[in-house]
Protein backbone atom coordinates (compact mmCIF):
# COMPACT_ATOMS: atom_id res chain seq x y z
CA UNK A 1 0.00 0.00 0.00
CA UNK A 2 2.58 2.49 1.14
CA UNK A 3 4.80 1.47 -1.71
CA UNK A 4 2.07 2.15 -4.22
CA UNK A 5 1.18 5.45 -2.67
CA UNK A 6 4.77 6.52 -2.64
CA UNK A 7 5.40 5.35 -6.17
CA UNK A 8 2.95 7.94 -7.43
CA UNK A 9 4.72 10.73 -5.63
CA UNK A 10 8.39 10.00 -5.92
CA UNK A 11 10.62 9.32 -8.86
CA UNK A 12 11.12 5.67 -9.55
CA UNK A 13 13.82 3.88 -7.61
CA UNK A 14 13.71 6.18 -4.66
CA UNK A 15 10.86 4.61 -2.75
CA UNK A 16 12.13 1.23 -1.69
CA UNK A 17 13.99 2.34 1.38
CA UNK A 18 11.94 5.28 2.52
CA UNK A 19 9.43 5.32 5.29
CA UNK A 20 6.08 6.99 4.79
CA UNK A 21 7.04 9.75 7.17
CA UNK A 22 10.19 10.51 5.26
CA UNK A 23 8.29 10.62 1.99
CA UNK A 24 5.74 13.00 3.42
CA UNK A 25 8.53 15.21 4.71
CA UNK A 26 10.17 15.16 1.31
CA UNK A 27 6.90 16.06 -0.34
CA UNK A 28 6.54 19.06 1.95
CA UNK A 29 9.92 20.36 0.80
CA UNK A 30 8.58 20.43 -2.74
CA UNK A 31 5.62 22.52 -1.71
CA UNK A 32 7.84 25.01 0.07
CA UNK A 33 9.87 25.37 -3.08
CA UNK A 34 6.78 26.48 -4.98
CA UNK A 35 6.03 29.28 -2.55
CA UNK A 36 8.07 32.14 -4.11
CA UNK A 37 6.65 31.61 -7.59
CA UNK A 38 3.12 31.11 -6.30
CA UNK A 39 3.24 34.26 -4.21
CA UNK A 40 4.44 36.28 -7.18
CA UNK A 41 1.71 34.86 -9.40
CA UNK A 42 -1.00 35.55 -6.86
CA UNK A 43 0.16 39.11 -6.30
CA UNK A 44 0.85 40.13 -9.90
CA UNK A 45 -1.49 37.86 -11.85
CA UNK A 46 -4.06 36.41 -9.51
CA UNK A 47 -5.40 39.33 -7.54
CA UNK A 48 -5.27 41.89 -10.36
CA UNK A 49 -6.93 39.37 -12.65
CA UNK A 50 -9.87 38.90 -10.29
CA UNK A 51 -9.99 42.64 -9.72
CA UNK A 52 -9.97 43.25 -13.47
CA UNK A 53 -12.76 40.75 -14.05
CA UNK A 54 -14.83 42.38 -11.32
CA UNK A 55 -14.17 45.84 -12.76
CA UNK A 56 -15.44 44.70 -16.15
CA UNK A 57 -18.92 44.35 -14.63
CA UNK A 58 -18.90 47.86 -13.15
CA UNK A 59 -19.13 51.36 -14.58
CA UNK A 60 -16.00 52.55 -12.79
CA UNK A 61 -14.79 55.80 -14.24
CA UNK A 62 -11.90 57.98 -13.11
CA UNK A 63 -13.61 61.18 -14.16
CA UNK A 64 -16.76 60.40 -12.18
CA UNK A 65 -16.12 60.02 -8.43
CA UNK A 66 -19.45 58.31 -7.70
CA UNK A 67 -19.00 55.58 -10.30
CA UNK A 68 -18.13 51.98 -9.58
CA UNK A 69 -21.56 50.41 -9.32
CA UNK A 70 -22.24 46.92 -10.54
CA UNK A 71 -23.87 47.14 -13.95
CA UNK A 72 -24.10 43.49 -14.91
CA UNK A 73 -23.42 42.81 -18.56
CA UNK A 74 -23.91 46.44 -19.61
CA UNK A 75 -20.28 46.91 -20.73
CA UNK A 76 -20.28 43.75 -22.79
CA UNK A 77 -23.58 44.63 -24.44
CA UNK A 78 -22.17 48.05 -25.28
CA UNK A 79 -19.05 46.51 -26.74
CA UNK A 80 -21.04 44.11 -28.88
CA UNK A 81 -23.06 47.00 -30.26
CA UNK A 82 -20.00 49.12 -30.90
CA UNK A 83 -19.08 48.97 -34.57
CA UNK A 84 -15.77 50.70 -33.85
CA UNK A 85 -14.80 47.82 -31.60
CA UNK A 86 -15.47 45.21 -34.26
CA UNK A 87 -13.42 47.10 -36.81
CA UNK A 88 -10.51 47.20 -34.36
CA UNK A 89 -10.97 43.54 -33.43
CA UNK A 90 -10.93 42.72 -37.13
CA UNK A 91 -7.65 44.50 -37.64
CA UNK A 92 -6.19 42.90 -34.49
CA UNK A 93 -6.99 39.42 -35.78
CA UNK A 94 -5.73 40.34 -39.24
CA UNK A 95 -2.53 41.79 -37.79
CA UNK A 96 -1.94 38.78 -35.54
CA UNK A 97 -2.67 36.28 -38.30
CA UNK A 98 -0.53 37.95 -40.96
CA UNK A 99 2.38 38.65 -38.63
CA UNK A 100 2.50 35.07 -37.37
CA UNK A 101 2.04 33.57 -40.85
CA UNK A 102 4.69 35.71 -42.54
CA UNK A 103 7.14 35.34 -39.67
CA UNK A 104 6.62 31.60 -39.81
CA UNK A 105 7.40 31.47 -43.52
CA UNK A 106 10.39 33.78 -43.19
CA UNK A 107 11.62 31.86 -40.16
CA UNK A 108 11.22 28.54 -41.97
CA UNK A 109 13.09 29.80 -45.05
CA UNK A 110 15.98 31.08 -42.94
CA UNK A 111 16.01 27.92 -40.83
CA UNK A 112 16.21 25.79 -44.00
CA UNK A 113 19.13 27.86 -45.27
CA UNK A 114 20.92 27.78 -41.94
CA UNK A 115 20.38 24.06 -41.55
CA UNK A 116 22.65 23.48 -44.53
CA UNK A 117 26.22 22.57 -44.01
CA UNK A 118 27.73 25.98 -44.66
CA UNK A 119 30.70 27.76 -43.26
CA UNK A 120 30.09 30.64 -40.86
CA UNK A 121 26.71 29.32 -39.91
CA UNK A 122 27.06 30.62 -36.35
CA UNK A 123 27.70 34.15 -37.62
CA UNK A 124 24.70 34.07 -39.93
CA UNK A 125 22.54 32.74 -37.16
CA UNK A 126 23.69 35.43 -34.75
CA UNK A 127 22.89 38.14 -37.27
CA UNK A 128 19.49 36.66 -38.07
CA UNK A 129 18.66 36.54 -34.36
CA UNK A 130 19.44 40.20 -33.77
CA UNK A 131 15.91 41.62 -34.13
CA UNK A 132 14.69 39.43 -31.29
CA UNK A 133 17.04 40.85 -28.66
CA UNK A 134 16.71 44.47 -29.72
CA UNK A 135 14.41 46.54 -27.50
CA UNK A 136 11.10 47.25 -29.25
CA UNK A 137 11.62 50.94 -28.58
CA UNK A 138 14.88 50.85 -30.49
CA UNK A 139 13.39 48.76 -33.30
CA UNK A 140 10.50 51.15 -33.83
CA UNK A 141 12.86 54.16 -33.82
CA UNK A 142 14.95 52.43 -36.47
CA UNK A 143 11.89 51.83 -38.61
CA UNK A 144 10.76 55.42 -38.25
CA UNK A 145 14.21 56.52 -39.28
CA UNK A 146 14.70 54.39 -42.37
CA UNK A 147 11.13 55.07 -43.51
CA UNK A 148 11.45 58.82 -42.89
CA UNK A 149 10.10 60.81 -45.83
CA UNK A 150 13.02 63.20 -46.21
CA UNK A 151 16.14 61.48 -44.95
CA UNK A 152 15.11 57.84 -44.69
CA UNK A 153 17.25 55.45 -46.65
CA UNK A 154 14.30 53.61 -48.16
CA UNK A 155 12.80 56.69 -49.77
CA UNK A 156 16.20 57.97 -50.82
CA UNK A 157 16.98 54.67 -52.47
CA UNK A 158 13.65 54.36 -54.24
CA UNK A 159 13.94 57.92 -55.52
CA UNK A 160 17.51 57.50 -56.66
CA UNK A 161 16.54 54.58 -58.90
CA UNK A 162 13.52 56.61 -60.08
CA UNK A 163 10.98 54.08 -58.96
CA UNK A 164 9.05 56.86 -57.26
CA UNK A 165 9.02 60.64 -57.82
CA UNK A 166 7.95 61.82 -54.40
CA UNK A 167 8.68 60.17 -51.05
CA UNK A 168 6.29 57.55 -49.74
CA UNK A 169 4.68 58.61 -46.46
CA UNK A 170 4.76 55.24 -44.74
CA UNK A 171 3.19 56.31 -41.47
CA UNK A 172 0.74 58.93 -42.66
CA UNK A 173 -1.68 56.98 -44.79
CA UNK A 174 -3.96 54.44 -43.18
CA UNK A 175 -3.18 51.58 -45.54
CA UNK A 176 0.58 52.08 -45.56
CA UNK A 177 0.70 52.51 -41.80
CA UNK A 178 -0.99 49.14 -41.45
CA UNK A 179 1.51 47.55 -43.80
CA UNK A 180 4.35 49.18 -41.88
CA UNK A 181 3.27 47.96 -38.45
CA UNK A 182 2.83 44.45 -39.84
CA UNK A 183 6.28 44.61 -41.39
CA UNK A 184 7.93 45.67 -38.16
CA UNK A 185 5.89 43.08 -36.26
CA UNK A 186 7.20 40.34 -38.53
CA UNK A 187 10.71 41.68 -38.16
CA UNK A 188 10.51 41.37 -34.39
CA UNK A 189 9.00 37.86 -34.33
CA UNK A 190 10.66 35.87 -37.12
CA UNK A 191 13.85 35.08 -35.08
CA UNK A 192 11.83 33.08 -32.58
CA UNK A 193 10.26 31.01 -35.35
CA UNK A 194 13.63 30.57 -36.99
CA UNK A 195 15.30 29.33 -33.82
CA UNK A 196 12.68 26.76 -32.91
CA UNK A 197 12.31 25.55 -36.50
CA UNK A 198 16.06 25.22 -36.76
CA UNK A 199 16.05 23.11 -33.60
CA UNK A 200 13.27 21.06 -35.15
CA UNK A 201 15.19 20.60 -38.40
CA UNK A 202 18.33 19.57 -36.58
CA UNK A 203 16.46 16.89 -34.69
CA UNK A 204 15.33 15.28 -37.95
CA UNK A 205 18.72 13.99 -38.98
CA UNK A 206 20.01 13.27 -42.45
CA UNK A 207 19.16 9.57 -42.52
CA UNK A 208 15.52 10.49 -43.09
CA UNK A 209 16.39 12.20 -46.36
CA UNK A 210 18.89 9.90 -47.99
CA UNK A 211 16.49 7.10 -49.01
CA UNK A 212 14.15 9.67 -50.54
CA UNK A 213 16.90 11.20 -52.62
CA UNK A 214 18.05 7.71 -53.64
CA UNK A 215 14.54 6.99 -54.88
CA UNK A 216 14.76 10.06 -57.08
CA UNK A 217 12.69 12.54 -55.11
CA UNK A 218 13.48 16.18 -55.85
CA UNK A 219 14.20 18.75 -53.17
CA UNK A 220 10.68 20.13 -53.22
CA UNK A 221 9.12 16.71 -52.75
CA UNK A 222 11.46 15.96 -49.87
CA UNK A 223 10.54 19.28 -48.28
CA UNK A 224 6.81 18.77 -48.84
CA UNK A 225 6.52 15.11 -47.82
CA UNK A 226 9.30 14.63 -45.28
CA UNK A 227 10.46 17.90 -43.75
CA UNK A 228 7.11 19.64 -43.30
CA UNK A 229 5.29 16.68 -41.73
CA UNK A 230 8.16 16.04 -39.36
CA UNK A 231 8.24 19.71 -38.38
CA UNK A 232 4.53 19.71 -37.65
CA UNK A 233 4.69 19.46 -33.83
CA UNK A 234 7.32 22.18 -33.53
CA UNK A 235 5.50 24.36 -36.05
CA UNK A 236 2.21 24.06 -34.24
CA UNK A 237 3.77 24.87 -30.90
CA UNK A 238 5.62 27.86 -32.31
CA UNK A 239 2.61 29.22 -34.15
CA UNK A 240 0.35 28.76 -31.14
CA UNK A 241 2.76 30.51 -28.77
CA UNK A 242 3.40 33.32 -31.19
CA UNK A 243 -0.32 33.84 -31.81
CA UNK A 244 -0.82 34.09 -28.07
CA UNK A 245 2.07 36.51 -27.55
CA UNK A 246 1.31 38.70 -30.52
CA UNK A 247 -2.37 38.98 -29.74
CA UNK A 248 -1.77 39.46 -26.01
CA UNK A 249 1.02 41.93 -25.69
CA UNK A 250 3.60 42.14 -28.46
CA UNK A 251 1.21 43.98 -30.77
CA UNK A 252 0.79 46.69 -28.17
CA UNK A 253 4.43 47.74 -27.84
CA UNK A 254 5.18 47.47 -31.52
CA UNK A 255 2.19 49.45 -32.77
CA UNK A 256 1.94 51.92 -29.93
CA UNK A 257 5.56 52.94 -30.30
CA UNK A 258 5.40 53.09 -34.09
CA UNK A 259 2.14 54.91 -34.77
CA UNK A 260 0.37 55.28 -31.40
CA UNK A 261 -2.62 53.75 -33.16
CA UNK A 262 -2.75 56.45 -35.82
CA UNK A 263 -3.27 57.87 -38.34
CA UNK A 264 -6.88 58.36 -37.19
CA UNK A 265 -7.16 55.01 -35.40
CA UNK A 266 -6.24 53.00 -38.49
CA UNK A 267 -3.69 50.90 -36.61
CA UNK A 268 -5.62 50.48 -33.37
CA UNK A 269 -5.48 46.99 -31.93
CA UNK A 270 -7.71 45.84 -29.08
CA UNK A 271 -5.04 46.30 -26.41
CA UNK A 272 -4.40 49.88 -27.54
CA UNK A 273 -8.14 50.57 -27.52
CA UNK A 274 -8.37 49.24 -23.98
CA UNK A 275 -5.39 51.33 -22.93
CA UNK A 276 -6.77 54.56 -24.36
CA UNK A 277 -10.22 53.85 -22.96
CA UNK A 278 -8.75 53.47 -19.49
CA UNK A 279 -6.07 56.15 -19.51
CA UNK A 280 -7.56 58.97 -21.58
CA UNK A 281 -11.29 58.45 -21.21
CA UNK A 282 -11.02 57.14 -17.63
CA UNK A 283 -13.53 54.39 -18.34
CA UNK A 284 -11.86 51.66 -16.30
CA UNK A 285 -14.88 49.37 -16.26
CA UNK A 286 -15.37 49.48 -20.01
CA UNK A 287 -11.63 49.04 -20.67
CA UNK A 288 -11.55 46.01 -18.38
CA UNK A 289 -14.49 44.51 -20.23
CA UNK A 290 -12.60 44.86 -23.52
CA UNK A 291 -9.57 43.13 -22.01
CA UNK A 292 -11.79 40.41 -20.55
CA UNK A 293 -13.19 39.73 -24.01
CA UNK A 294 -9.62 39.40 -25.27
CA UNK A 295 -8.93 36.79 -22.64
CA UNK A 296 -12.06 34.84 -23.55
CA UNK A 297 -10.94 34.83 -27.16
CA UNK A 298 -7.49 33.60 -26.17
CA UNK A 299 -9.01 30.86 -24.04
CA UNK A 300 -11.01 29.76 -27.10
CA UNK A 301 -7.89 29.72 -29.27
CA UNK A 302 -6.02 27.67 -26.67
CA UNK A 303 -8.97 25.29 -26.42
CA UNK A 304 -8.98 24.85 -30.21
CA UNK A 305 -5.26 24.20 -30.15
CA UNK A 306 -5.51 21.60 -27.38
CA UNK A 307 -8.36 19.87 -29.19
CA UNK A 308 -6.35 19.85 -32.40
CA UNK A 309 -3.43 18.31 -30.56
CA UNK A 310 -5.64 15.61 -29.05
CA UNK A 311 -7.29 14.90 -32.40
CA UNK A 312 -3.98 14.59 -34.20
CA UNK A 313 -2.59 12.39 -31.43
CA UNK A 314 -5.63 10.11 -31.76
CA UNK A 315 -5.20 9.99 -35.53
CA UNK A 316 -1.58 9.05 -35.02
CA UNK A 317 -2.54 6.24 -32.64
CA UNK A 318 -5.14 4.95 -35.10
CA UNK A 319 -2.59 5.04 -37.89
CA UNK A 320 -0.09 3.08 -35.81
CA UNK A 321 -2.75 0.55 -34.88
CA UNK A 322 -3.68 0.11 -38.51
CA UNK A 323 -0.03 -0.42 -39.35
CA UNK A 324 0.51 -2.99 -36.65
CA UNK A 325 -2.45 -5.06 -37.76
Amino acid at each position, binding site marked *: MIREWAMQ*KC*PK*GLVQNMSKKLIAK*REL*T*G*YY*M*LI*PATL*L*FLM*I*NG*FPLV*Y*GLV*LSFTNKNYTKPKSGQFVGLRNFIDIFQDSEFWGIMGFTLFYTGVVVMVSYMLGLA*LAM*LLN*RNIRGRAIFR*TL*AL*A*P*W*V*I*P*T*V*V*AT*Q*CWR*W*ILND*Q*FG*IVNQFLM*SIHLIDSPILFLSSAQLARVTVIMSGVWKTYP*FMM*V*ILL*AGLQSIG*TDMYEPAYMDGANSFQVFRYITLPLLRP*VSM*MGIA*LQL*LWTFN*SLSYDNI*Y*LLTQGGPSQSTYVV*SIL*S*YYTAIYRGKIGYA*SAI*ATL*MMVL*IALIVLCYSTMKVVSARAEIRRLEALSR
Partner: protein
Amino acid sequence: MKKKNGWVYVVLCIALTVLLLPILSMVTTSFKTNAELYGGVSFLPQNPTLDNFVYVIENTDFVTNIVNSVIVSGAVTIISVIAAALAGYTLTRFRGKPVKLFSVLLYMVQMVPAILLLMPLFMVIRQIGLYDKLPSLMIAYTAINLPICIYMMKSFFATIPYEIEESAVMDGCGQFKAFLLLVIPISAPGLTSVGIIAFIYSWNEYMLASVFIRSDAVKTLSVGLSQFSQQFSVEWGAMMAAATLATVPAALFLVFAQKYIVQGLTAGAVKG
Protein backbone atom coordinates in the same frame (compact mmCIF):
# COMPACT_ATOMS: atom_id res chain seq x y z
CA MET B 1 24.88 13.74 -51.40
CA LYS B 2 27.38 16.54 -51.89
CA LYS B 3 25.64 19.67 -53.01
CA LYS B 4 26.94 23.04 -53.98
CA ASN B 5 26.09 25.66 -51.41
CA GLY B 6 27.28 28.79 -53.19
CA TRP B 7 23.79 30.14 -53.77
CA VAL B 8 23.00 29.72 -50.08
CA TYR B 9 25.61 32.31 -49.17
CA VAL B 10 24.28 34.74 -51.76
CA VAL B 11 20.69 34.35 -50.60
CA LEU B 12 21.63 34.60 -46.92
CA CYS B 13 23.75 37.70 -47.47
CA ILE B 14 21.03 39.50 -49.42
CA ALA B 15 18.31 38.46 -46.97
CA LEU B 16 20.31 39.52 -43.93
CA THR B 17 21.33 42.83 -45.45
CA VAL B 18 17.68 43.66 -46.03
CA LEU B 19 16.60 42.36 -42.63
CA LEU B 20 19.33 44.17 -40.74
CA LEU B 21 18.99 47.41 -42.66
CA PRO B 22 17.19 49.15 -39.76
CA ILE B 23 20.01 48.25 -37.37
CA LEU B 24 22.78 49.07 -39.81
CA SER B 25 21.17 52.38 -40.57
CA MET B 26 20.87 53.13 -36.86
CA VAL B 27 24.54 52.46 -36.18
CA THR B 28 25.87 54.37 -39.18
CA THR B 29 23.56 57.30 -38.50
CA SER B 30 24.74 57.60 -34.93
CA PHE B 31 28.28 58.30 -36.13
CA LYS B 32 27.30 60.92 -38.70
CA THR B 33 27.59 64.67 -38.35
CA ASN B 34 24.40 66.66 -38.65
CA ALA B 35 25.45 68.10 -42.01
CA GLU B 36 25.95 64.62 -43.38
CA LEU B 37 22.76 63.38 -41.85
CA TYR B 38 20.49 65.90 -43.49
CA GLY B 39 22.44 66.64 -46.66
CA GLY B 40 24.50 63.63 -47.51
CA VAL B 41 23.53 60.64 -49.56
CA SER B 42 26.17 58.23 -48.37
CA PHE B 43 25.11 55.29 -46.23
CA LEU B 44 28.36 55.13 -44.31
CA PRO B 45 29.54 58.15 -42.31
CA GLN B 46 32.25 60.06 -44.17
CA ASN B 47 33.74 61.69 -41.06
CA PRO B 48 32.79 59.41 -38.20
CA THR B 49 32.18 61.43 -35.05
CA LEU B 50 31.18 60.72 -31.47
CA ASP B 51 29.36 64.05 -31.13
CA ASN B 52 25.94 62.41 -31.03
CA PHE B 53 26.95 60.13 -28.19
CA VAL B 54 28.51 62.97 -26.23
CA TYR B 55 25.38 65.05 -26.76
CA VAL B 56 23.14 62.26 -25.48
CA ILE B 57 25.22 61.63 -22.40
CA GLU B 58 25.67 65.30 -21.49
CA ASN B 59 22.27 66.75 -22.28
CA THR B 60 19.75 64.08 -21.46
CA ASP B 61 18.77 61.76 -18.62
CA PHE B 62 20.03 58.87 -20.64
CA VAL B 63 22.70 57.78 -18.14
CA THR B 64 20.14 57.79 -15.32
CA ASN B 65 17.83 55.71 -17.49
CA ILE B 66 20.55 53.19 -18.15
CA VAL B 67 21.41 52.92 -14.45
CA ASN B 68 17.74 52.38 -13.60
CA SER B 69 17.39 49.73 -16.26
CA VAL B 70 20.49 47.96 -15.00
CA ILE B 71 19.12 47.96 -11.44
CA VAL B 72 15.70 46.67 -12.49
CA SER B 73 17.01 44.07 -14.93
CA GLY B 74 19.65 42.88 -12.47
CA ALA B 75 17.11 42.40 -9.70
CA VAL B 76 14.64 40.68 -12.03
CA THR B 77 17.37 38.36 -13.24
CA ILE B 78 18.30 37.31 -9.71
CA ILE B 79 14.74 36.83 -8.45
CA SER B 80 13.70 35.02 -11.64
CA VAL B 81 16.58 32.60 -11.49
CA ILE B 82 15.88 31.73 -7.85
CA ALA B 83 12.11 31.43 -8.14
CA ALA B 84 12.28 29.57 -11.47
CA ALA B 85 14.94 27.15 -10.25
CA LEU B 86 12.92 26.27 -7.15
CA ALA B 87 9.65 25.85 -9.02
CA GLY B 88 11.20 24.13 -12.04
CA TYR B 89 12.95 21.65 -9.80
CA THR B 90 9.76 20.83 -7.95
CA LEU B 91 7.92 20.29 -11.22
CA THR B 92 10.41 17.63 -12.29
CA ARG B 93 10.96 15.87 -8.93
CA PHE B 94 7.63 15.99 -7.13
CA ARG B 95 4.21 14.77 -8.15
CA GLY B 96 1.74 15.64 -5.40
CA LYS B 97 -1.61 17.39 -5.93
CA PRO B 98 -0.30 20.91 -5.18
CA VAL B 99 2.36 20.41 -7.84
CA LYS B 100 -0.28 19.52 -10.42
CA LEU B 101 -2.35 22.48 -9.31
CA PHE B 102 0.68 24.67 -9.76
CA SER B 103 1.30 23.52 -13.31
CA VAL B 104 -2.31 24.29 -14.18
CA LEU B 105 -1.83 27.74 -12.65
CA LEU B 106 1.30 28.17 -14.71
CA TYR B 107 -0.56 27.29 -17.89
CA MET B 108 -3.40 29.71 -17.17
CA VAL B 109 -1.20 32.61 -16.14
CA GLN B 110 0.15 32.78 -19.67
CA MET B 111 -3.28 33.34 -21.16
CA VAL B 112 -4.02 36.54 -19.28
CA PRO B 113 -3.55 39.61 -21.50
CA ALA B 114 -1.12 42.07 -19.95
CA ILE B 115 -3.56 44.86 -20.69
CA LEU B 116 -6.21 43.29 -18.46
CA LEU B 117 -3.74 43.29 -15.57
CA LEU B 118 -2.48 46.77 -16.28
CA MET B 119 -5.11 48.92 -14.56
CA PRO B 120 -5.80 46.66 -11.54
CA LEU B 121 -2.09 46.13 -11.07
CA PHE B 122 -1.58 49.86 -11.25
CA MET B 123 -4.11 50.32 -8.44
CA VAL B 124 -2.47 47.59 -6.35
CA ILE B 125 0.95 49.13 -6.86
CA ARG B 126 -0.38 52.50 -5.76
CA GLN B 127 -2.08 50.98 -2.71
CA ILE B 128 1.09 49.36 -1.44
CA GLY B 129 3.10 52.51 -2.05
CA LEU B 130 5.30 51.29 -4.85
CA TYR B 131 4.00 53.68 -7.50
CA ASP B 132 6.82 55.58 -9.20
CA LYS B 133 9.41 53.33 -7.59
CA LEU B 134 11.65 50.79 -9.26
CA PRO B 135 10.58 47.78 -7.11
CA SER B 136 7.13 47.94 -8.74
CA LEU B 137 8.75 47.05 -12.06
CA MET B 138 11.01 44.41 -10.51
CA ILE B 139 8.08 42.49 -9.03
CA ALA B 140 5.84 42.84 -12.07
CA TYR B 141 8.51 41.84 -14.60
CA THR B 142 9.56 38.83 -12.58
CA ALA B 143 6.00 37.54 -12.26
CA ILE B 144 5.09 38.13 -15.90
CA ASN B 145 8.21 36.53 -17.28
CA LEU B 146 8.27 33.71 -14.73
CA PRO B 147 6.19 31.07 -16.59
CA ILE B 148 8.64 30.90 -19.47
CA CYS B 149 11.57 30.84 -17.01
CA ILE B 150 9.99 27.96 -15.09
CA TYR B 151 9.41 25.99 -18.28
CA MET B 152 13.03 26.53 -19.23
CA MET B 153 14.28 25.40 -15.83
CA LYS B 154 11.93 22.44 -15.86
CA SER B 155 13.17 21.19 -19.21
CA PHE B 156 16.73 21.68 -18.05
CA PHE B 157 16.29 19.76 -14.76
CA ALA B 158 14.49 17.02 -16.66
CA THR B 159 17.78 16.29 -18.44
CA ILE B 160 19.61 15.77 -15.14
CA PRO B 161 19.21 12.12 -14.11
CA TYR B 162 17.67 11.58 -10.71
CA GLU B 163 20.43 9.14 -9.75
CA ILE B 164 22.56 12.16 -8.90
CA GLU B 165 20.48 13.01 -5.84
CA GLU B 166 19.02 9.58 -5.21
CA SER B 167 21.60 8.06 -2.91
CA ALA B 168 22.03 11.27 -0.97
CA VAL B 169 18.30 11.54 -0.38
CA MET B 170 18.10 7.91 0.68
CA ASP B 171 20.88 8.45 3.15
CA GLY B 172 18.74 11.04 4.85
CA CYS B 173 19.91 14.19 3.15
CA GLY B 174 16.90 16.44 2.64
CA GLN B 175 15.67 16.92 -0.89
CA PHE B 176 16.28 20.64 -0.64
CA LYS B 177 19.82 20.15 0.54
CA ALA B 178 20.41 17.72 -2.30
CA PHE B 179 19.04 20.29 -4.73
CA LEU B 180 21.24 23.01 -3.34
CA LEU B 181 24.45 21.02 -3.02
CA LEU B 182 24.23 18.51 -5.87
CA VAL B 183 21.94 19.87 -8.58
CA ILE B 184 22.61 23.60 -8.55
CA PRO B 185 26.38 23.27 -9.03
CA ILE B 186 25.87 21.41 -12.30
CA SER B 187 23.03 23.64 -13.49
CA ALA B 188 25.02 26.65 -14.61
CA PRO B 189 23.92 26.41 -18.28
CA GLY B 190 20.24 26.27 -17.39
CA LEU B 191 20.49 29.06 -14.84
CA THR B 192 22.42 31.23 -17.29
CA SER B 193 19.78 30.73 -19.97
CA VAL B 194 17.02 31.75 -17.61
CA GLY B 195 19.00 34.73 -16.38
CA ILE B 196 19.67 36.01 -19.87
CA ILE B 197 16.08 35.63 -21.03
CA ALA B 198 14.85 37.42 -17.89
CA PHE B 199 17.39 40.19 -18.33
CA ILE B 200 16.55 40.81 -21.97
CA TYR B 201 12.84 40.83 -21.22
CA SER B 202 13.13 43.42 -18.47
CA TRP B 203 15.62 45.50 -20.40
CA ASN B 204 13.18 45.74 -23.31
CA GLU B 205 9.81 46.03 -21.57
CA TYR B 206 7.89 49.18 -22.30
CA MET B 207 4.18 49.08 -21.45
CA LEU B 208 4.31 48.57 -17.68
CA ALA B 209 7.26 50.91 -17.31
CA SER B 210 5.37 53.68 -19.07
CA VAL B 211 2.46 53.40 -16.64
CA PHE B 212 4.13 52.63 -13.31
CA ILE B 213 6.82 55.27 -13.47
CA ARG B 214 6.31 59.01 -13.59
CA SER B 215 9.43 60.89 -12.40
CA ASP B 216 12.44 61.34 -14.62
CA ALA B 217 14.80 60.13 -11.90
CA VAL B 218 13.41 56.58 -11.96
CA LYS B 219 12.56 56.19 -15.64
CA THR B 220 13.95 53.13 -17.33
CA LEU B 221 15.61 53.04 -20.68
CA SER B 222 12.69 52.09 -22.89
CA VAL B 223 10.49 54.85 -21.51
CA GLY B 224 13.33 57.36 -21.57
CA LEU B 225 14.08 56.52 -25.17
CA SER B 226 10.48 56.76 -26.32
CA GLN B 227 10.15 60.17 -24.67
CA PHE B 228 13.41 61.22 -26.12
CA SER B 229 11.97 60.63 -29.56
CA GLN B 230 9.05 62.90 -28.78
CA GLN B 231 11.20 65.69 -27.34
CA PHE B 232 13.89 65.66 -29.96
CA SER B 233 11.83 64.47 -32.88
CA VAL B 234 14.17 66.09 -35.40
CA GLU B 235 17.49 65.21 -33.89
CA TRP B 236 17.86 61.87 -35.51
CA GLY B 237 21.60 61.69 -34.93
CA ALA B 238 21.29 61.96 -31.16
CA MET B 239 18.32 59.62 -31.11
CA MET B 240 20.12 56.95 -33.09
CA ALA B 241 23.13 57.30 -30.79
CA ALA B 242 20.90 56.68 -27.78
CA ALA B 243 19.25 53.77 -29.54
CA THR B 244 22.64 52.30 -30.37
CA LEU B 245 23.74 52.54 -26.74
CA ALA B 246 20.49 50.92 -25.62
CA THR B 247 21.21 47.99 -27.89
CA VAL B 248 24.69 47.30 -26.51
CA PRO B 249 23.76 44.81 -23.73
CA ALA B 250 21.52 42.86 -26.06
CA ALA B 251 24.25 42.76 -28.69
CA LEU B 252 26.80 41.57 -26.13
CA PHE B 253 24.52 38.77 -25.00
CA LEU B 254 23.87 37.83 -28.58
CA VAL B 255 27.56 37.58 -29.42
CA PHE B 256 28.88 35.98 -26.25
CA ALA B 257 25.97 33.97 -24.92
CA GLN B 258 23.98 33.14 -28.01
CA LYS B 259 24.00 29.46 -27.16
CA TYR B 260 22.02 30.16 -24.01
CA ILE B 261 19.53 32.40 -25.75
CA VAL B 262 18.87 29.72 -28.34
CA GLN B 263 18.56 27.06 -25.63
CA GLY B 264 16.17 29.24 -23.71
CA LEU B 265 13.93 29.99 -26.66
CA THR B 266 13.85 26.39 -27.77
CA ALA B 267 13.21 24.93 -24.33
CA GLY B 268 10.36 27.31 -23.71
CA ALA B 269 8.74 26.52 -27.02
CA VAL B 270 9.25 22.83 -27.38
CA LYS B 271 8.48 21.78 -23.84
CA GLY B 272 6.11 24.60 -22.93
